[in-house]
């Protein structure tokens, strides 16, 4: 089957790739672009481990085709930290031990960063419902929610 040529932007960098029409964005990120931060936990959009942003909107990259990235902007976990420093969310996740195994962490960080950009002052319930599409099997979510709430408070204080 002939491959499709795609030009897109990932974490601010323009990239080009060839992909099979059936390949998902997640396959492309992991297998063609070497960005293995996004994880495949289910391949059916149920677990959120592959969460990325598409033109600023949170999506499951396993439910999007690679070819659909043409001309769009993709954001992945690899783009969350700046060159010099971790994002406040990343620091708080480490400080709060909001990860145990760490497999869901990339997706949860992409999702929560997206939440805080839209809503800098979420309630606990809002955080819980926003993250309801990101499964974590290790933590029981307690420390994740606390880390997100504290990050939000800190970022509000700083701005």
């Amino acid at each position: 089957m002939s491959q499709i040529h795609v030009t897109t932007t990932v974490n601010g960098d323009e990239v080009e790739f060839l992909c099979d029409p059936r390949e998902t964005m997640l396959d492309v990120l992991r297998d063609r672009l070497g960005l293995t931060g996004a994880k495949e936990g289910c391949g059916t959009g149920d677990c959120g481990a592959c969460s990325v942003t598409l033109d600023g909107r949170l999506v499951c990259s396993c439910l999007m085709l690679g070819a659909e990235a043409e001309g769009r902007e993709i954001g992945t976990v690899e783009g969350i930290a700046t060159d010099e420093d971790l994002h406040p969310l990343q620091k708080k996740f480490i400080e709060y031990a909001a990860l145990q195994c760490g497999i869901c962490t990339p997706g949860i960080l992409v999702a929560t960063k997206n939440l805080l950009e839209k809503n800098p002052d979420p309630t606990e319930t809002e955080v819980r419902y926003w993250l309801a599409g990101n499964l974590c099997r290790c933590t029981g979510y307690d420390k994740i929610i606390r880390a997100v709430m504290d990050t939000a408070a800190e970022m509000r204080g700083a701005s």
Partner: protein
Amino acid sequence: MAFDETKTEGFKVVGTRPNRPDGIDKVTGRARFGADATAPGMLHGVIVRSPHAHARILKIDTSEAEAMKGVHAVVTRADFATGLTGENWNILENVMAGETALYDGHAVVAIAATSSLAARDAAKAIVVDYEVLPHVTDVDKAMAEGAPVIREGAADKSVPAGLHPNVVRYHESGHGDVETGFAEADLVIEDSFRTEATHQGYIEPHACLAQLGNDGRGEIWCCTQGHWNVQKVCAALLGIETSKLRVTASEIGGGFGGKTAVFIEPVALALSLKANRPVKIVMTRSECFRATGPTSSTSMDVKIGMKKDGTITAAKGVFRLQGGAFPGAPMEFTAMCAFAPYNLANVSQIGFDVMSNRPKQAAYRAPGSPMAAFAVESVIDELCEQLGLDRIETRLKNASKEGTKASFGPTWDRIGLVECLEAAKAHPHYTAPLKPGQGRGISCGFWFNHGGETAVQMALSEDGTVQLSVGTPDIGGSRASMAQMAAEELGIPYENVRTTIADTATLGYNEISHGSRVTYASGLATIEAARDTIRKLCKRAAAKWGIDEEAVSWVDGCAVPSGPNAGDFDPLPIARIAKSMGRTGGPIVGHYEATPEGAGVSFATHIVDAEVDPETGSTRVVRYTVVQDAGKAIHPTYVEGQYQGGAAQGIGWALNEEYIYGADGRLQNAGFLDYRIPVASDLPMIDTVIVEVPNPGHPYGVRGVGETSICPPLAAIANAVSAAAGVRLHELPMSPPRILAALEKQAAG
């Protein structure tokens, strides 16, 4: 202090909450998990699985598939070792079916191609002819007369005569005379309970990258709880020498017992050998559900007698566990854990290991124990209810403690159940007011914990920092606790210890990360390796000063002269000794290899408030408190994390999660949409209380903490539901349809 005492105070690093060393890797996407590795020339493997619950494999036609573009290898059972016996045979039979497919999802043939799309396309072109056989997936039906026999002659000698051939192992233990005990009771309650199989539900599917050359040398990269076990099992299944395989454990995206088993690694090796190229296999989520080990489903009868003052006079339990198409359901643990929290004069427990047409069960966090607690603690709650007794006082009255006789025989050493119950009683949660429609439940839970073969190495760098190599994969922050224990012993900063999970070629055999053993056993070995390092450091100082080794002691990261005749020398810091070690005798490396046997058991008490919606039958957990004995919490935040994670998995088991089989024996909910694990919006915050009753078998008093936390939730929630809605559920999960049915039955009188 002497090295042979348990240190219980004066800690500098242990008990603090430093950032985990691998934190940045894991928040930036840099950490490399099972599916994140590639190799030059790598192929992708796909496994074709049986769509039938039980079927004879008549013919496998791969000709069309093999002719397809990009296909390089096909393997079937014929490509694996022959003549295996015992558990190795069971594992091989599960990894690749022989003559018969034994469950929906059983591997039948595998194919490797240049891309995963090419491999999937080729897999669809493989034609397997089956003769469908009668099947059974229910535990009670599988041991009933007339049930299809999964495998003749699978039973061991423990099974009494006259039972169905699907009953393959039997356990019986206890003491006293239960009939006499029941006669002494003022109230006897006997009830039957059932729990469905649940899956560990790790978010990372099994993944591996394997290479095996025709010289028999190979390498495996995989997500596993135990890479030495992968090495051993793969060598046996491929018929090669163990040392020819080198296995590296990737970062592991959750295991909970499910990654103690071997599934895809031998298949990838066999494909690699045929193709002479590296092969990567990554399971889909559906494959994880259908073909990796869930826990057992159970059918249980529990009978307990109690006096009006709350004294338990006798207890009896019969526990039937279905463990899939192979022996191994952990019914002996169900039996031995069932009444472990209580000091009983008369107790009897019986267990049955039953085969059925389901995937081979695998360990899941305190295997066998949570189901037992569900049945036993539900009956105790009902006795308290009917006799008007306080739930915690009654449990305290009967609680196991040091010197009492365990339900499975021995006399207890130092244990912390009473301390847990007292802490639960004192917790504000226990007496907090409830809103209308809410109910409160409590439950105790017990798990044995384990030590196991362990090897650790500690290499000193020239700048005085330390490279610690352990062999137990880090599933939940154990690199941090290892570094803390090393830093504590050496008297150096936590940041100066780098913990690495070594591969199988680097250390001696390390048992799987299971049985809550990592912080206990690898921790103990780390402490001993540090002490070995200190002895070597002191020797160098003694040589430099020209005094006896015995006249040197180690204080705060420095060698110091000690004793009356040691002489007067300035303390020699670790970095100074390290800097010159090449010229004073060579590299300094401490190590420790042993099978530590002092893993202290662990008890917990959970308190839960639940709310039942009478319209929908939906149950919501509104408040949750975990109280558990950790012996000594090395990194309290990660101990809390284990408590919270176990509670959350227990909540899922209690309320939502279940394997649903159709009449055709096929799994109907092999995905996270239909097999619903708790999501963030389902749960409240989970409060924790760390009780510390030191384990005499560990230098700092550590007890394993990983597993016990999943034991109490099933019963605690059932008891809360009973208090909230007035209905007692005898079957898990307590899903909305079951709650509604119970409410309707109650309304009908």
